[in-house]
């Protein structure tokens, strides 16, 4: 007896920390299609009318033409109703923010009917919007889950309310959507894990049955790898079989158990196996494109039948065990080939065709003058000794620099007078090289080796002369918890500063507003996060210059802000 348990995993742990902006937009002015109007609905002990529209639900008090309550469906997490038999017939909407709104249906004769009508309609509408909201939510969730640094940042900045969730996500989601569109263009798809079947390892359920865990990911992998199964699924589910029955049969079939020999014909998957067999055969018949791996033409077969010392028994019969073993091997090869093909199915079309057309006329093999190009290429590759030849290094993309000086030296303050071009540097290097090459040590004035080595010891870290400026690594001086806290501070400050600097040049009112806000965010960060930390390390013994760089960075931002502000003031006056 098989028992299929379909478990869909959803990330659940993180939903709590997502702060959803409550969108309380009043947009009564716009005409909307009203799907349902329920009169005599009380809210906060006030009579009024409930409107269900295409995108939102709204309530307005009697006698007024504006809504005091309005929720977009996307903001609603769920609806709750009062139990049957209760005197008050109510409907409660729970928002993602945790707030809730309760409507009391007060029309005595039709209250229950009214409520159910509203409930049913909501039931239809909410899932549609939920998907949209969920998608975003899931994406955010995923980003947080996949990136522990981001998660820490989120905790440092949003949970501790240095910046709002909106601000935090504003730039993030844009980034991710950019990435998304990029990846869409280059169509890089994630391949299939070769071990997806391993994840369904059966567990005994304790009562003489086996339990397989099947997730939607695995199902997708099965479909992608074995299109024949997908076809079977489309043919049979749900008209002939339920989904559960389908998968139960799948797991019962020899198809799933690679060591079973195909026996039963009633099995719906025996056809799949046959198709696979056919596919495998056609692949084998097609042969390989790369002549260097073609084992069939490897040997210049000259031994005729009957010669040779090897006993070749073509009719040697195999035992059942051996048959099942070779079935396993065949299926592993097939499985790997299918997984590989599933990953390449979309990508390889153009390049593949080119090589295929060039290698199909294989019968010109013997002529040296008309070798199929692919073979020629492979042969050349095989005899190539890259290190014996000049100028055949790996092909790289040349770096195209507009200002190579800037690339070599990095941004250098312009007031510095020691600005040297790369030519100067090359000259001086060659100068030094020349000097070194004709350097002749004056052997009479050489220091004895013992003195030299003692000098080196004295000058090495920890040596006599190095006591003053001991350069011990931070990792040795600072306890790990402080280190990690410092690390978090750095990432958080970096994030804030990134927001700050991204406002420049400030050329729109929006950016102006943002830059001001970012400055205050920075200040808040300094006071709520950085200061306590600094106090802590002071208390604890450590030198304050641990955070001096952080301070410098923030100070630089303040300076910039200040410069910008004075300039703006000057312009205004």
């Amino acid at each position: 007896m098989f028992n299929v348990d379909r478990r869909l995993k959803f990330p659940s742990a993180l939903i709590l920390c997502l702060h959803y902006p409550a969108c309380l937009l009043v947009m009564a002015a716009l005409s909307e299609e009203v799907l349902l109007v329920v009169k005599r609905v009380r809210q906060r002990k006030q009579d009024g009318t409930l409107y269900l529209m295409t995108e939102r639900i709204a309530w307005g008090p009697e006698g007024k033409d504006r809504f005091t309550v309005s929720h977009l469906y996307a903001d609603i997490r769920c609806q709750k109703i009062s139990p049957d038999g209760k005197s008050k017939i109510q409907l409660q909407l729970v928002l993602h923010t945790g707030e809730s709104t309760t409507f009391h249906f007060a029309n005595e004769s039709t209250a229950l009917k009214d409520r159910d009508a509203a409930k049913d309609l909501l039931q239809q509408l909410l899932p549609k919007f939920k998907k949209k909201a969920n998608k975003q939510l899931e994406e955010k969730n995923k980003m947080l889950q996949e990136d522990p640094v981001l998660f820490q940042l989120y905790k440092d900045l949003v949970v501790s309310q240095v910046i709002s969730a909106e601000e935090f996500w504003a730039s993030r989601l844009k980034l991710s959507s950019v990435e998304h569109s990029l990846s869409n263009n280059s169509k890089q798809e994630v391949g299939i894990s070769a071990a997806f079947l391993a994840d369904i390892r059966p567990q005994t359920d304790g009562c003489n049955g086996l339990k397989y865990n099947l997730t939607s990911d695995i199902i997708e992998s099965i479909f992608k790898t074995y299109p024949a199964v997908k076809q079977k699924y489309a043919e049979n589910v749900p008209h002939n079989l339920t989904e559960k029955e389908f998968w139960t049969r799948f797991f019962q079939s020899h198809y799933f158990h690679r060591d079973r020999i195909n026996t039963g014909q009633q099995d719906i998957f025996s056809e799949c196996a046959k198709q696979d067999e056919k596919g495998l055969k056609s692949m084998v018949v097609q042969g390989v494109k790369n002549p260097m791996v073609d084992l069939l033409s490897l040997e210049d077969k000259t031994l005729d039948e009957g010669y040779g010392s090897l006993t070749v028994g073509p009719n040697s019969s195999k035992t059942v065990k051996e048959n099942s073993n070779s079935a396993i091997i065949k299926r592993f090869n097939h499985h790997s080939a299918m997984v590989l093909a599933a990953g390449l199915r979309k990508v390889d079309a153009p390049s593949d065709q080119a090589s295929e057309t060039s290698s199909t006329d294989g019968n010109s093999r013997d002529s040296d003058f008309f070798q199929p190009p692919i073979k020629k290429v492979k042969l050349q590759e095989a005899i190539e000794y890259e290190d014996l030849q000049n100028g055949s290094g790996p092909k790289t993309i040349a770096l195209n620099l507009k200002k190579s000086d800037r690339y070599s030296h990095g941004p250098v303050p312009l007031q510095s007078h020691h600005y040297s071009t790369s030519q100067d540097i090359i000259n001086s290097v060659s100068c030094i090289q020349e000097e070194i090459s004709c350097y002749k040590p004056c052997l009479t004035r050489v220091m004895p080796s013992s003195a030299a080595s003692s000098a080196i010891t004295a000058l090495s870290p920890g040596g006599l002369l190095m006591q003053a400026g001991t350069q011990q690594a931070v990792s040795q001086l600072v306890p790990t918890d402080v280190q990690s806290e410092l690390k978090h501070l750095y990432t958080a400050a970096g994030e804030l500063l990134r927001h700050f600097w991204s406002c420049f040049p400030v050329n729109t009112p929006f950016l102006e507003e943002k830059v001001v806000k970012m400055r205050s965010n920075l200040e808040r960060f300094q006071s709520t996060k950085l200061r306590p930390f600094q106090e802590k390390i002071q208390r604890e013994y450590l030198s304050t210059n641990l955070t001096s760089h952080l301070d410098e960075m923030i100070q630089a931002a303040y300076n910039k802000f200040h410069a910008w502000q004075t300039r703006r003031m000057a312009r205004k006056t």
Partner: protein
Amino acid sequence: MKLNIEGLLVYFPYDYIYPEQYSYMLELKRTLDAKGHGVLEMPSGTGKTISLLSLIVAYQKAYPLEVTKLIYCSRTVPEIEKVVEELRKLMEFYTKETGEKNNFLALALSSRKNLCIHPEILHANIVVYSYHYLLDPKIADLVSKELAKKSVVVFDEAHNIDNVCIDSMSVNITRRTLDRCQTNVDTLQNTIQRIKETDAAKLREEYRRLVEGLKEANVARETDIYLSNPVLPDEVLQEAIPGSIRTAEHFVGFLKRFLEYLKARLRIHHVVQESSPQFLKDIYEKVCIDRKPLRFCAERLRSLLRTLEIADIADFSPITLISHFATLVSTYSKGFTIIIEPFEDKTPTIANPVLHFSCMDPSIAIKPVFERFQSVVITSGTLSPLDIYPRILDFRPVTMASFTMTLARTCLCPLIVGRGNDQVAMSSKFETREDFAVIRNYGNLLLEMSAIVPDGIVAFFTSYVYMENIVASWYEQGILENIQRNKLIFIETPDAAETSMALEKYQEACENGRGAILLSVARGKVSEGIDFVHHFGRAVIMFGVPYVYTQSRILKARLEYLRDQFQIRENDFLTFDAMRHAAQCVGRAIRGKTDYGLMIFADKRYARADKRGKLPRWIQEHISDGSLNLTIDETVQLSKHFLRQMAQPFRREDQLGLSLLTLEQLQSEEMLEKISQIAQQA
């Protein structure tokens, strides 16, 4: 660059040279100067072929009267094609440097269909073809008979040359063969009958020729025009074909009698093993067939088929096989054994009688080659121990040397894994190979390696059956599924087409970054013919010591012969044979100095001196005491370290002066001194 090899100007078509290439050319030149034979071992990937070609072509140009031809034999078609490609490169370089139009004729035969170009062989300066064209008497007679004595013969990839020799001289006869012979004989009879009615003169002419005897052939051999043929022994040439088989009808009658005798011999229920003289005695007693006509059988049949103008010789391959058997069994009283087995050992209930006529002495087939040509060079990446080849092939070389690979960084990492993490010894020896713990530890080793080695891993098993069993038990234990989390798995099958496809998919998976594992078999086609350069093979794992199946009667007979004739102990030979195959397998991964790879020997027996000592020097010298009898964990640690080092950039500058030389560097005294130490004379 242009090199001066002891006074010989050699054009070398590269800007740089490996020190060992220079050393190799030195040894090769000494061999040619001495007009003797040589055994040279140099690792693959050090440019052996181009060194050989450059030197011999230069020699031919400098001393056109001393060396007239180069006969280059290699094993597989791709290898032959590679040689041709390198030769083309060399010729282009000559043209570029000297400005002269190239007047060298080189010829490559890569299929028997091309046999019609036979006259051209005589004029070519270089002939490239497969071993069989020289070693298989049936083909050599057609293709190579008239090659000049002053030729240099090179057997590249010659580590299995003894087996090629033996194969070309061994014959297996089954019931099916005999049935098809029967058909052949009937066809012959009918054809003779028909010709007798229409063109009796033709048969009379043949008869006359046969009375004249094979004098012509004899004259030719004495005047040194022909390569002698082991199937056509000297004695045969001096005598006329005996009267009893001179007429066509008599000969067919003779063949019939012989066939009936063989059929009777196959009707047995127990294994029979006998020597050639015993067989001859029996055949004389039972059906009164003499030794003499038997000896002429092959030649007589050839003459008949020619006379009857049979278009498709291939149809007569069974009767040709039988005639070869007859000649060989009556010619050689030593070096062969006859074993008749009524059934296969695995299936004692199914009658499938086979008569094995097995050659046990590889020197018989290669003897004419050594005797005829002035220099024969046997070379390969793995020829250790060097001295065994002259012994089993029965020749006296003037040079024997093994060259190491000079390396700027140690790009190969041989490790011997002897234990699992549970300390259970790992070994494929017969008593423990089916042991659950051994199989599980082998699986764990592969699993762990699959997690740390990038791209491709190739694993070799000692035999196909063993691999099947292990794969099945890994499947049951879920090990394969865990490996699949890291890499795709491809497995060699007995079907060559299927395996080719698996190989191509394997390479595809290595190419696109997924990474893959290829499970394969030592002594199989993959282990002998496919290279796993760079990312196609970052690690090779040899599961067990690939001993040949020792229960076979043919092998036992051969071992006995080796012991009696060459004083080679059974165990020495078996170990030598196992180690050369192991070396072949692990050597697949290193195909050059810029390449790198792990060589994992997963059997504790490799740690023993008698095994280790038989590995090629270029592998042996990298096995330290710290890499013997490791556990899986230790292996993983060492491998990680090695792979991390190898992943660092490796540039020409790192090699220059150490393992790669410019002309100036080559010419320095100091370097020449160093180079003289690369070759280790055996």
